[in-house]
C-alpha cells in the first residue's frame, strides 16, 4: 500500500475512476464502461507522462475538492473546467488554474474542482497513476452493478485516494486542445433496425432537432423531439448493444446509449453514433438541442482515423 494520498473534502456530483473500459466480458453481462470522453482521458494521461489507458478520476458538473495529505504530486485536469489550488505555503491567495496544464502539488495543498463549463465531464490525472484494484483488467467503475474501485461506488467525502509515485521534479507541460465544439450535429450510421421506422419518421429523425433531457447519465441520454413511428415492432429479440446505439422505446423517443449501456437490449435501434462523435455527444448537457446527420461507413472510419491523428500529434 502506498503512503501517498489525498483526502476527499467534497466528493462532487458524480466522481468515479475510469479508464478506457473493460473488455472481453460483455457476454457475462458486464458492459465496457470507461470514460465518457476518452479523448480527454488520453490527453490527461499524456500530460503527466502516463500510458494512455491508465485510470483517472472522471467528474461531472462539479468535481471533488481534494487535500494532499501525504507526498508530492504532479496532476493535470482536462476538459472545460474551472478549478483552483490553495497552497499551504500561501494560504491567503487562491491560484486560478487552467485545464490542459500540469501542476505540482506539495503536502497540504488543496485542489478544488468547482465546475465544468458548457460541458459535463472533466478528468483529473496524476503522474504514476492512482492506486486502484483491477477487475477483469480494468479499473473502470460501474456504479449500478457495484464493480470497480471503491467497491464500485462513486467517490465519497472523507475517502483517502492513494497514488503510487511521489513527484520528483517541477517541470510543467501544457497542450493546446479546443474543448468546445462548433456545432451540435451528431453523425450516425444506420442502426440494425433502421428499416423498422416509417419513411416519414426517418426523414424527421434527420431533419428535426432533438433535445437532451434530464434523464441523461453515463448509461444513456434520453432525447425529446419528433416521436418515431415504428411500423414493424417495438420489441425485437434482445441482441448485443454497442456504445452509441440509438434505441427507440415504445413511446417513440430515442435514447443514445453511452459508456454504461446495457450489454443486451430489446428495443429497435434506428442509428449508431460514429466513434469520432462519442466525445461530442458525451459533453452535451440537458437542454441542448442536437441534429443527426447520416454518413457512410467509409467516412465514419475516416473521421475516426483523422481524429486519432490529431490526438497523436498533440501527444
Amino acid at each position: 500500500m502506498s503512503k501517498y494520498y489525498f483526502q476527499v473534502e467534497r466528493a462532487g456530483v458524480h466522481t468515479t475512476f475510469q479508464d478506457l473500459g473493460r473488455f472481453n466480458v460483455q457476454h457475462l453481462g458486464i458492459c465496457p464502461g470507461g470514460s465518457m470522453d476518452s479523448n480527454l482521458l488520453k490527453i490527461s494521461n499524456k500530460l503527466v507522462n502516463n500510458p494512455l489507458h491508465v485510470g483517472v478520476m472522471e467528474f461531472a458538473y462539479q468535481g471533488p475538492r481534494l487535500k494532499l495529505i501525504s507526498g508530492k504530486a504532479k496532476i493535470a485536469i482536462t476538459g472545460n473546467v474551472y478549478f483552483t489550488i490553495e497552497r499551504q505555503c500561501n494560504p491567503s491567495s487562491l491560484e486560478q488554474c487552467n485545464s490542459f496544464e500540469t501542476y505540482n502539488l506539495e503536502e497540504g495543498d488543496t485542489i478544488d474542482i468547482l465546475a465544468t463549463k458548457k460541458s459535463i465531464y472533466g478528468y483529473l490525472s496524476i503522474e504514476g497513476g492512482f492506486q486502484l484494484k483491477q477487475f477483469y483488467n480494468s479499473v473502470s467503475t460501474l456504479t449500478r452493478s457495484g464493480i470497480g474501485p471503491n467497491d464500485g461506488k462513486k467517490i465519497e467525502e472523507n475517502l483517502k485516494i492513494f497514488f503510487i509515485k511521489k513527484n520528483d521534479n517541477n517541470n510543467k507541460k501544457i497542450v493546446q486542445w479546443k474543448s468546445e465544439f462548433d456545432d451540435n450535429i451528431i453523425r450516425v450510421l444506420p442502426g440494425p433496425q433502421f428499416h423498422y421506422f416509417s419513411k416519414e419518421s426517418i426523414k424527421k429523425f434527420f431533419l428535426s432537432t432533438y433535445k437532451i433531457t434530464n434523464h441523461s447519465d453515463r448509461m444513456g441520454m434520453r432525447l425529446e423531439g419528433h416521436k418515431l413511428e415504428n411500423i414493424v415492432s417495438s420489441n425485437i429479440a434482445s441482441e448485443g448493444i454497442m456504445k452509441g446505439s440509438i434505441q427507440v422505446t415504445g413511446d417513440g423517443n430515442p435514447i443514445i446509449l453511452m459508456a454504461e449501456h446495457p450489454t443486451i437490449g430489446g428495443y429497435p435501434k434506428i442509428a449508431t453514433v460514429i466513434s469520432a462523435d462519442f466525445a461530442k455527444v458525451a459533453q452535451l448537457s440537458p437542454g441542448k438541442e442536437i441534429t443527426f446527420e447520416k454518413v457512410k461507413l467509409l467516412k465514419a472510419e475516416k473521421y475516426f482515423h483523422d481524429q486519432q491523428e490529431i490526438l497523436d500529434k498533440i501527444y
Partner: protein
Amino acid sequence: MFKKIYNISDQGIICDFGSEINKEINSKVIGVFNYINNNLDLKRELGIVNCIPSYNKIVIQYDLLLVSSDSIIKYISSIKEHQLSYQNNQKKFELPICYDTEYGLDLESISKQNKISIEEIIYLHHETSFYVYMMGFLPGFPFMGDLTNKLFTSRLTTPRVFVPAKSVAIVEKFCAIYPFESPGGWNIIGKTPTKLFEKNKKNPSLLYPGAEVKFKSISKEALMVMESKHNE
C-alpha cells in the same frame, strides 16, 4: 449457418443466425461464440474487444485502430459449422421466488391484460422448466425460456426508471432476473433472495447460457429471512 453479417457501427458487426428463437439456433450461436472467444490469437489478430452472443445473433466489437470492417467480416464469414464444438455442461438450478404483490408489481396488470387470475399466472410460471439462452443487459442477468403463451406480455411502453434488485420479470416467452437495481421494461412478477452476481467469487455469475432453472415458491417471511442471511 449465418444468414447475414453486416456493420452496425464503425467498430462493430452483427452476425445474424435467423429470426427464430429456439435451442437449436441458440446452440450454434454459443458454438461460434466459444470458437472466437476461446481463440486468443484470433481475437488479437482481428482486434476483437468484445463478442456478445444473444438468442440468434452475435455482435462483435473490434478496435478500428487495428482492423477494418472488411477484413473482420471476411474472416467471420469463413467460419464453418463443423469447426465448432458443442459443450454439454448443463447444470440444474433451483431458485426461490416470492410472488407476493408487494414484489410482483405487474401481476395485476398482466392478470387484466391476459385475462387470467394472478393464481394462474403464478402456477404457470412456477411449473415452467427454464433454459438459459443468454446472459446480458446487466452482470449475471439471465434470459430464460420458454413460458406458455398464456403468459405472453409486451415490454412496458415506458420503461421503469428503477426496477428493484432481484426482481423476477417476464416478457413474451421469456423470464429474467434483475441482479441489481436498474432501469427496465419487463413485467415484474416476484422477487428472489438469491444473489446472481458476486464479484468476489472466482466465477462471479451464478448462471450461464445453457443452464436449466426451476423456481420454488416461498412466502414473504421466508424471503426476508433468506435475504437477511445472504447479507450477513
